[in-house]
């Protein structure tokens, strides 16, 4: 059983956490289906870690109800701890123990049955490519290797639900790809994974994701749904003087965001109820001409980053008006 009886692994209503005057998490409603890779996308300080810590019972919510794997959290947090794995943001294994010693220790702590423990440790050493590093001290390994070891330790007791807090933020792209392959293997085997990240390419890999901004859940759905629902149009502008063109557009009405990508600008405009991008395209060209920066404006396929910019911008504007 990987989830509650309706296939939902995590359900939170009105989840709120205050630290003094700061509202770190603000009335978040969440539903994470079982056996999925569910992403938490948000900038640093958006409340991702705080939410994860509340969901696994490490922090007491200021308000709201949490149901994880059919258990009421934080009241039944102890019972939940046997069924989850948690990979912290900072490497939290013992740097002065070897790879094998770390795995053996976690097997004992997580209560892997004696008869099974030795086999399980060997299995993970094999699967996570540590065969030639068993006796290496964890502290002497690279960032990518450490994260792999942390994941191996987090799944040693075959948890139904795995929390990963920015697991690959300090890892090179190659190791990151390997790491995500492991995550999908786990999901295929029936594990539910909740992964927080501030990296767009990672968020795009998730089955579903929620976007958090300043403690507020501003959007959720599959990456496809989110880009389809995007209330904006994306354009690529090619120009010789991208910085000057950027200055011309950045404060224009309806422009949500301008980002320089090499010699081009990526512009996101607010679409309102207009489904067709033609009007916006002409508007941008007009603005550029006025600033003495004529350039070609091409419509582009929106991506998750555009979604992210659009929803976070919107929530900030609402805040300003309120």
């Amino acid at each position, binding site marked *: 059983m990987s989830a509650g009886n309706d296939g939902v692994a995590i359900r939170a209503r009105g989840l709120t956490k205050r630290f003094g005057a700061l509202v770190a998490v603000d009335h978040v409603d969440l539903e994470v289906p079982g056996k999925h890779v569910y992403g938490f996308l948000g900038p640093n300080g958006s409340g991702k870690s705080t939410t994860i810590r509340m969901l696994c019972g*490490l*922090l007491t919510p200021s308000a709201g109800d949490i149901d994880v794997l059919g258990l009421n959290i934080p009241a039944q*947090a102890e019972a939940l*701890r046997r069924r989850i794995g948690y990979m912290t943001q*900072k490497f*939290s294994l013992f*740097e002065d123990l070897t790879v094998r010693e770390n795995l053996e220790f976690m097997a004992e*702590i997580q209560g892997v049955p004696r008869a099974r423990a030795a086999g399980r440790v060997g299995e993970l050493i094999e699967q996570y490519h540590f065969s030639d590093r068993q006796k290496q001290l964890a502290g002497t390994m690279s960032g990518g290797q450490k994260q792999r070891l942390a994941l191996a330790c987090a799944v040693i007791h075959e948890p139904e639900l795995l929390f990963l807090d920015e697991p690959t933020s300090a890892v090179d792209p190659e190791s990151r790809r390997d790491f995500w392959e492991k995550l999908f293997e786990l999901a295929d085997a029936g594990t539910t994974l909740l992964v927080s990240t501030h990296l767009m390419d990672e968020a795009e890999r998730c089955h579903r994701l929620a976007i958090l901004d300043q403690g507020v859940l501003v959007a959720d759905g599959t990456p496809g749904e989110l880009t389809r629902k995007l209330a904006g149009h994306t354009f690529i502008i090619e120009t010789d003087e991208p910085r000057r063109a950027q200055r011309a557009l950045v404060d224009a009405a309806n422009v949500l965001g301008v980002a320089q990508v090499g010699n081009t600008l990526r512009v996101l405009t607010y679409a309102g109820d207009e489904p067709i991008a033609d009007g916006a395209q002409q508007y941008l060209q007009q603005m550029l001409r006025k600033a003495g920066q004529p350039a070609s404006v091409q419509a582009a396929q929106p991506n998750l980053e555009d979604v992210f910019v659009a929803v976070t911008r919107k929530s900030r504007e609402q805040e300003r008006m309120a």
Partner: protein
Amino acid sequence: MSWRRLWAIVIKELRQMRRDRITLAMIVGIPVIQLVLFGYAINTNLRGLEAGISDQANTAGSRALVMDMLATGVIAPVARADTPEGLMAMLRRGDISVGVVVPPDFERRRIDGRAVAQILVDGGDNTVQGAAVQLAQVPIDSSIADSRAPMISTPVEGRISIVGFYNPQRRSAVNIVPGLIGVILTMTMVLFTAIAIVRERERGNMELLIATPLTSAELMIGKVLPYIAIGLVQTSVILALGRWLFVVPISGSLFDVYLAAGLLILANLTLGLLISTRAQSQFQAMQMAFFIFLPSILLSGFMFPFAGMPKVAQWLAEVLPLTHFLRLIRGVMLRGAGLGEMWVDVLALLAFIAVMMAAAILRFRKRLD
């Protein structure tokens, strides 16, 4: 050299210091505590040593002699005994540190010019032995109205004999080494556990551990157990070196020595645990341990005799595990007493351990908030 950069460093230091509350407390706290503790603890002019009196003569003359001794203020009577043997038993248990014996033939001896009284003294503490010498200077005949004998108003050398027990040669190693076991264990054990837990918090290990089924009690007791073994190894090293290098005797049972050491180790480890639930960094843990260590050294009776300290300092000392351990270890090693005879101090250590352990487990939360 740029004055601007230099000044920037100075300002930055002061800003950081202001935000580090424990360092701030140390700036003021250390001089105040040091001064007060040293001022009160150092008192070489001993007063009020606990004394037992056995006046077997019980004549006007003998009573006057005892009164003269009490009048010096060096001793304070806490017990009476019929025989010198009774005093010796009290001395061994540590109930008294000085015994005054006046023999039945006191009057006869006084006339004959022989020794008229005996002072039994616990040689485990050299300062106490020094005080006994002072006591023996009491003039014997000055206050006795006796027409038959010539008036002798000056003290006569040797008329009151001093019998030093347990360390007749007055070697300071005998006095220091048993206490050193306690000081070394206090110094190392508190820090070991305090740092062991805070280090895990600093390195992030703790967040991983509290997200597992591991219970607070399992974690706390598991942390303490290995250090008990390490503490007992330390005890053995000090005992062996004391034996070979300084010929320090172990008069009582070796088992009692280890039992007493085990109690002190546990007391210090549990104290370390409690510190660890409070301290945010290893450095803070060390600072807090230092605050415990200082009064332990000064007030426990290791450096300065307990009896010489004012009442408030003595009450404070009663809270420190080292004070009770010193009484036990000196009793067992030097006087050959059994732990059963000094049950009050055993009980005090046990109570300390129970309170500290319970407080540490209660204070430790499997939560981050």
